[in-house]
Structure formats: structure tokens, C-alpha cells
């Protein structure tokens, strides 16, 4: 049941326990308990809104960067310690440990290129374990979290009544 609940919440986190209960044929109580447990277990880590910032900052003033970071892992701690040093910055939105040519992907948002470059040169590159960084700026976002950002509002093409 928990998996069914999070599948619904993943698509629409505003669904209430009562609504989910109807959709799954369970009691509201059962669903509420399951959600609380998943929150406690960090399975559900938060409820956010997917925002198309490009529409708010039409004339600029909002950029997203993807930074490839190479680091030296630390004895006993591996990559976790250095990842923590990075993800604790507010501006950093996501941090992933990668396989392949580099170690960490850092995604961050800022007002403009300058702000992000400053952050990288002042805060990221200067960390002891960071060997090198390569920064890519996002030019346009098409799809995020499975949702097409600028999807056209599609009309229901179907006839009103059909057999």
C-alpha cells in the first residue's frame, strides 16, 4: 500500500489522506498512518512545488548551473564528508555521487552567471578535497521530475459522447 500511496503523492503532493484513501479503497486512518511512517523514515522527504522559474524571471535574473566536480575521497569517510560540505550551502539544490569521469554532480541556482562563478571560485574550488570543477549553465529546461514544463494545454480531442 505504501508504494501505491507514494505513487499518487509523487504525481500530486496536494492529495489529502482522505482522497488517497478513496482512490486506493483503504481507510483514511490507514493512509494517514502510512504517510506519517514514511515521513518518519525519510521515504517522503518533503513536499515541494514544481515551478517554472523562467516564467517569473522572463528578463533574466535566474540561472541554473550543473557543475562537475572531481574530488579526492577521504580516508574512512569516502565521498560523504565532502558531499556534505557542499550540500549544506543553500544555493546548492542537488548533489549526486557519480560513476565515470568525475565524482560529484552539483546543481545550483543563482541570480546570474557572476553569482554562480563567484560561489564556485570562492566556496567550491577552495575546498581541500576538490581537485577541479567544470561548470555548465542551463539554457532551457524542457522537462523536470517527469513533467514537461511548457506543455501546451491540450484540448480533449475526443467526441463528447461515443460508444
Amino acid at each position: 500500500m505504501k508504494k501505491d500511496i507514494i505513487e499518487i503523492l509523487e504525481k500530486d503532493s496536494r492529495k489529502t489522506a482522505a482522497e488517497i484513501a478513496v482512490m486506493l479503497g483503504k481507510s483514511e486512518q490507514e493512509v494517514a498512518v502510512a504517510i506519517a511512517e514514511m515521513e518518519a523514515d525519510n521515504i517522503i522527504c518533503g513536499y515541494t512545488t514544481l515551478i517554472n522559474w523562467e516564467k517569473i524571471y522572463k528578463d533574466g535574473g535566474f540561472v541554473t548551473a550543473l557543475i562537475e566536480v572531481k574530488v579526492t575521497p577521504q580516508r574512512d569517510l569516502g565521498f560523504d564528508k565532502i558531499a556534505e560540505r557542499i550540500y549544506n550551502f543553500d544555493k546548492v539544490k542537488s548533489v549526486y555521487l557519480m560513476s565515470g569521469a568525475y565524482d560529484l554532480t552539483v546543481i545550483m541556482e543563482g541570480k546570474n552567471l557572476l553569482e554562480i562563478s563567484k560561489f564556485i571560485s570562492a566556496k567550491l574550488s577552495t575546498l581541500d578535497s576538490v581537485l577541479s570543477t567544470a561548470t555548465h549553465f542551463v539554457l532551457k529546461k524542457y522537462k523536470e521530475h517527469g513533467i514537461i514544463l511548457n506543455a501546451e494545454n491540450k484540448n480533449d480531442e475526443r467526441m463528447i459522447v461515443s460508444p
Partner: protein
Amino acid sequence: MTEIKDLIATHIQNIPYSGIRKFFDVANEIEGVISLGVGEPDFETPWAIRERGIYTLEKCRTVYTSNAGLLELREEISRYLKRKNNLDYNPKGQVLVTVGASEGIDLALRAVINPGDEVLIPEPSYVSYKPCIIMAGGIPIVITTKVENEFRLTAEEILEKLTDKTKALILPYPNNPTGAIMEKKDLEKIADVLKDRDIVIISDEIYSELTYGGIKHTSIAEIDSMYNKTIVLNGFSKSYAMTGWRLGYAAGPKELIAAMTKIHQYIIMCAPTISQYSAIEALRCCDDDVSKMRKEYDARRRVMLNGFRKMGLECFEALGAFYLFPCIKSTGLSSDEFCERLLYEAKVAVVPGTALGECGEGFIRCSYAYSIEAIQKALQKIEAFIKKYRKE
């Protein structure tokens, strides 16, 4: 001179336009209607299938295929029926690709009906069986299924209508419009009364992927004594959200499929080629898409059922297709009145049960091939409408 309309064949003149068609003409005139009236999925055809369609066009695979359909597709259909229902059909000779299950219905009936043969149809059911029987020269014999039985077909009901002239039985489950299903145990009971008869079972399984409550669809062809009497009809319209691609198939005993292929060869030649290539992709790669859609329908089904029950409309829990069939007798209105007034007064379109058989009187067909938000909005309007009539 005779008027043009009198040149039309009498038996065609006598066939009425479908009740759904008439209702569509009315509903289409009104602005801002919320509909629960459609018989097709709201989902998009999965991208992998559409992408294959585009590729097929790029490669200019736009010529006729063999009459029976691409062998590669027939092989996939054969594998699919094995995987889903453990049915064995030889792709060479036992499978025919058709223009939707619609064509399959027509072919199956024409292949078996001699003038005057009787064909049993459980009702309420899909609109095209009766006219297709008549056009094939047969006589439709209606079996009224009952809400007490959750609209399942019983052996007793068949026995009541069986005669020496009975040639075929149409078995439309999961059912449009009731949402009824037939489980293995139900099928075994009817198989018992049919097994020693010379009768062909035309099993319209177009909604086979859409069953709920943990019950998997069973085909009557899975019962040994029925395999050789059954034509399984299915297609891509509902399960893969491919209504406009016009693609379906028939599987059955090779003699019957050969006869159907003969008719198909002369009237259709072959099913649309681009759709056939795309359907190969559907059967190979889209099981996950189908389960996702099923899951979503199931949630909507519960929301709608809960809504009807809350507003005091009796509604049995349908476990198939994407329709609920609530009883509206408590409003004191006939099905036609209910639907017409609901349309004009609340701007919600649902289908009167009578459009799908006279015995659908007292019921309405509501489709849940809509988003939960749309369903909730429509339910609110229906509830307000019903309250008004209960008071009056």
C-alpha cells in the same frame, strides 16, 4: 420516380441510428459541457508506439501488408495471448489482424450466420452487435442480464433462449456499458451448457487489460471444451489508448479464421500498415504503460463509485472496462429524461442505459476515462442535480 431514400435497402432503412449517436448530436450543440460520455481512453498512446509510427512513415512502410496482417505482428499477438491467457494460436492461420475489434465483430458474424440463424447477445452491451447481426442476415436474440448478478451472464439465462436455430453467442466481457466481468467460475458454468452444442462463441475481449480488484481477465477460450468454438476478438484501442489507429485482431480455430480472412480480403484487403508496425512495438514494450493506465483507472473507478454511493445512487462495484452503471430509478426519471435534463440543466453528459439495450432503462453509463479532477467536478454537478429531483 422513387425518392432517393427509398432506394436504400429495406433492412438498412429499418436499422435505427444508435442512441449514442442521437445523444451526441444533442450534447454537441451545448457549450461548456463536462462529459462522462466517452468510450475511449483519455491517455495518450504511449510515446514508444507513436515513435514507431513516425519511424514507419520515415521508412515509407506505406504499402499493403498480407491480408492476415504482418507476420511479425501476428507472432507478437500469438505470444501475447500465450503470455496473458495461456492460449495457443498459430500465427500462421489462427490469427487475423483487423480494423479494430469492430471489423472483427462484423467478420465473425458474417462468417458464421446463415439467413435466419439466431445469435444470442447479453444486454446491456455495445451498440454494434445487434445491427451487425441483422446486416449479416441473422436474428438477434437478446438475453437480459441482471443487476442482481452484477450483469454477469448465467447458464440459466442462456438455456432459456437456446433453440435449434442458435448459431452463435456474443460474449462481451469485460462489458461496455456495465463494467461487468466474467470470472473463470462464471465461464465454466456457461461452458457446461454450451459444450455439446454446435455454437460459435464470439468473445469480445477488447477490455481484457482493464480488470480490477486483483482479478485477471479469463478468456472463455481457456476452457478446453470451448477453445474450438471460440473466436477471440481483441484490439489495441482500449488497452494501449489507440482508438484512432483502428487496429484489432481475431484469433480462433483455423477454419473460422480462414473464413473471416476471406471476407476481410475482399472488403478491407489489410489493416492500416503504419498501425500494424506500431502495434508490434505496443506488444513488445508497453506492458508497463498498460499497468500504469490500469492503476490510474482503478483509482478513478473508486473515486466515482464512492461519489455515486455518497449521493445515494445505487451502483454495483464494476470490476472491468472503464464504466460504472449506476441505477437512477430513485430520481423518478427515465434514463432518457435523466440524461437529457442532466445535460441541459447541469451541463454534464452521460449516456442513457437504454442506448445500450432496452433493459438499460433505469441506468446511466458513466465513463471514468477522465482525470480525477474532471470526475469530481462532474460528480458535484450530478449530486446537485439529483438533490433537486429528489425534493420535487
